[in-house]
């Protein structure tokens, strides 16, 4: 199963995604962490997320960019949870200096390869599209790339869930999710 879990900031999406991954898993489970923790605020978030995952059986891999090269390490895993797409794209565009078009191609390839390697893939992404501000070119490009990648994954996914105040709102895959009602 390929599942996309999206939501805004602090909307409870991580917990829904973790619970879904745990429910789907029938073997070894990977957590692909994408944050390149550069300051204290980021490091605090990493610690918080690690604490949330404690005891759920994840093996953590820190892959902030260049996912495709590292995916072979995950063969043998039954389920992978990638968190989150927003960071992965930011890292490819900012740290790896990829253009929006290059980033889209790179990430599409990453996802294809990941879904072909691991039987169950859960991808956490962000909804950042309800905003009124005019941003600089880099940020505008980033928003566009994230929107395009989210749409591409949603099209390929069996299941698309939006977390709203930690309530799972199912946009796609109601049938596939029957039996997984207790996501939160």
């Amino acid at each position, binding site marked *: 199963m390929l599942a996309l879990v999206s*939501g805004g*900031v*602090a909307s409870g999406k991580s917990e829904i995604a973790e619970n879904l991954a745990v429910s789907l898993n029938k073997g070894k489970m990977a957590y692909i962490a994408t944050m390149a923790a550069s300051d204290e605020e980021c490091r605090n978030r990493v610690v918080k997320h690690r604490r949330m995952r404690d005891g759920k059986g994840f093996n953590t891999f820190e892959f902030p960019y260049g996912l495709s090269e590292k995916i072979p390490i995950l063969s043998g895993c039954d389920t992978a949870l990638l968190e989150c797409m927003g960071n992965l794209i930011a890292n490819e565009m900012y740290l790896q200096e990829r253009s929006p078009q290059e980033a889209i191609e790179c990430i599409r390839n990453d996802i294809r390869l990941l879904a072909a390697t691991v039987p169950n893939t859960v991808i956490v992404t962000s*909804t*950042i599209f*309800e905003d009124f501000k005019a941003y600089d070119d880099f940020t505008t490009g980033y928003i566009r790339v994230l929107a395009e990648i989210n749409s591409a994954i949603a099209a390929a996914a069996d299941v698309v869930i939006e977390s709203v*105040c930690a309530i799972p709102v199912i946009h796609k895959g109601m049938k596939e999710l029957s039996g997984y009602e207790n996501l939160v």
Partner: protein
Amino acid sequence: MILVIGGGSQGKLEFVRRRWDIASANITDGGTCSFEEAFQRPVLDHLHLLIRRLQEASLDARKFIADGIEQHPGMILICDELSSAVVPVLKDDREMQETTGRVLCAAAQKAAKVYRVFCSVPVLIKGEEHD
């Protein structure tokens, strides 16, 4: 408790007024009320503005609102959703976005019903309509 969320100017208050026949005197505005009166009427509107003001006063907004809900379980809370936007550059704005999100996750867990109002259309995302 009933939670009503949605983007700004989506018709949340209008929905609450009509659905439960609420008079203006029974609605508190979280943007202007004193902290003491926040939970004293049946409806608290603009919860996100109350959160900002609590934060500006260096008070623990998550605890303040959790306590308010605990003590007044029959209320209707109305809050703008701020989470589906780019993470703000300013630390105070980031904190407000994060705190509002966490307050809403906790409130939704306690709520018997959660409505999300979209273009003035209320969508029930938790609970049953006729409870």
